[in-house]
């Protein structure tokens, strides 16, 4: 499969699951950009998130496996209790080091790592949530010329995360879920 020069990294916590599902549900199975999704979950939670995303979207949803290649048409879910990093060769690395922002997986870790690899071709999207995780990562993406999108706090189930992001990256794009979806579709 042809690699993508771009990457979409998406993060959220409380309310992020529903928000991400509604953003992703119209994307075609042939969507040309890999999507990495970091949701805060209960540690040691043994859920079936990949099955959920697989059934509610057209994309192939998988939990990230270490050394796996980031491919188009996929949504890659961060596993419980591991940070997700990207390598220069567009494969994933997992990391079980310290919690960051009280969380593992942490959104900042993935956003920062993606920007190191994809630079200005990184698209960072931060959704609803009740923590400050993700805003430093968005700032990092923005500093490297990438695209920053924040869910409209007025629409978010919890606005702490989007508000923290807007505070950190005032010139990021603020969009509602419908606009985020349209934006992602416009990239095809």
């Amino acid at each position, binding site marked *: 499969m042809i690699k993508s020069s771009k990457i979409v990294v998406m993060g959220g916590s409380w309310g992020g699951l529903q928000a991400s599902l509604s953003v992703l549900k119209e994307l075609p199975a042939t969507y040309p950009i890999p999507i990495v999704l970091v949701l805060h979950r209960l540690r040691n939670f043994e859920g079936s998130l990949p099955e959920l995303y697989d059934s509610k979207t057209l994309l192939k949803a998988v939990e990230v496996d*270490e050394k796996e290649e980031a491919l188009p048409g996929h949504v890659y879910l961060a596993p419980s209790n591991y940070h997700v*990093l*990207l*390598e220069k060769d567009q494969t994933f*690395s997992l990391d*079980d*080091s310290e919690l960051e922002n009280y969380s593992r997986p942490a959104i900042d*870790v993935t956003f*920062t790592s993606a920007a190191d690899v994809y630079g200005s071709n990184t698209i960072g999207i931060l959704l609803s949530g009740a923590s400050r995780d993700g805003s430093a990562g968005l700032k990092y993406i923005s500093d490297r010329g990438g695209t920053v999108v924040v869910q409209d706090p007025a629409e978010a189930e919890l606005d702490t995360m989007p508000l923290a992001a807007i505070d950190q990256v005032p010139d990021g794009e603020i969009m509602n879920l419908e606009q985020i979806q349209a934006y992602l579709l416009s990239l095809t």
Partner: protein
Amino acid sequence: MKLENEAHFEQEVEALIQDIHTQYGYDFGGYARASVYRRIKRFLGQKGLASVEELRGALFANSYFFENFLQEVTVNVTEMFRDPAFFLSLRANVLPILSTYPYIKIWDAGCSTGEELFSLAILLEEEGLLGRTKIYATDINQKVLKQAKEGIFSVSNMASYTAGYYAAGGKREFSGYYRSNYGNVKFDSSLVKNVVFYPHNLATDSSFNEFHLILCRNVLIYFNRELQERVYRLFDESLVSLGYLALGKKETLAMSSISTSYNIVDKSNRIYRKAS
């Protein structure tokens, strides 16, 4: 880190990795890069160092500082009874077979500060096997080995460790295994009476014994494919036939050259058994 400096960061780290190899004999060449870069940036921040050049100066001037660096860069975050289902499975599927041997030899590779080692020792104790088991606990880092030997952990983690212990099929009162003192707990040293603590570098050192069980959990994720392959072959050389190999939750033998000589004992808990 300033953006303009960052272009040089990775090049400087690569040069540093080579020099660390020459100077100290530690080879990080096979470590997955994203994590190494992140941990070095983190270390720079912690120590208030402005650049890799400053780090280099400090590292080569002071071997204590180097030990400290080694501890930070090689991830030493660990828990007791991490993934309790794994320990439950070890208890149910592996220990009964090991109990048929007159003596048992286990290698805990990358034992870090010892949380997993003590979890394992408690399991063996409860299955009546500890007295005839010898465990080799190894790590690249002498400092964490010393910590592991002491068996002192922070009391703040004990609630979650206790929950993990019972989820892992714990049979006794967990608090019976340790004494509390000033915010720490010290585990009973009889648990590690038959443990040999030994510095061993998976990236460069060779096989040193034959084992019935090797545990190496959440270590290989930090290595690249080539180094992983080296370590799998090392484990293969170090296991008796019908010996067991236990990996971390997201690690798999599937892509390795040794996979065909192993059977899956527990797929979700990553326990494998060497074919005869």
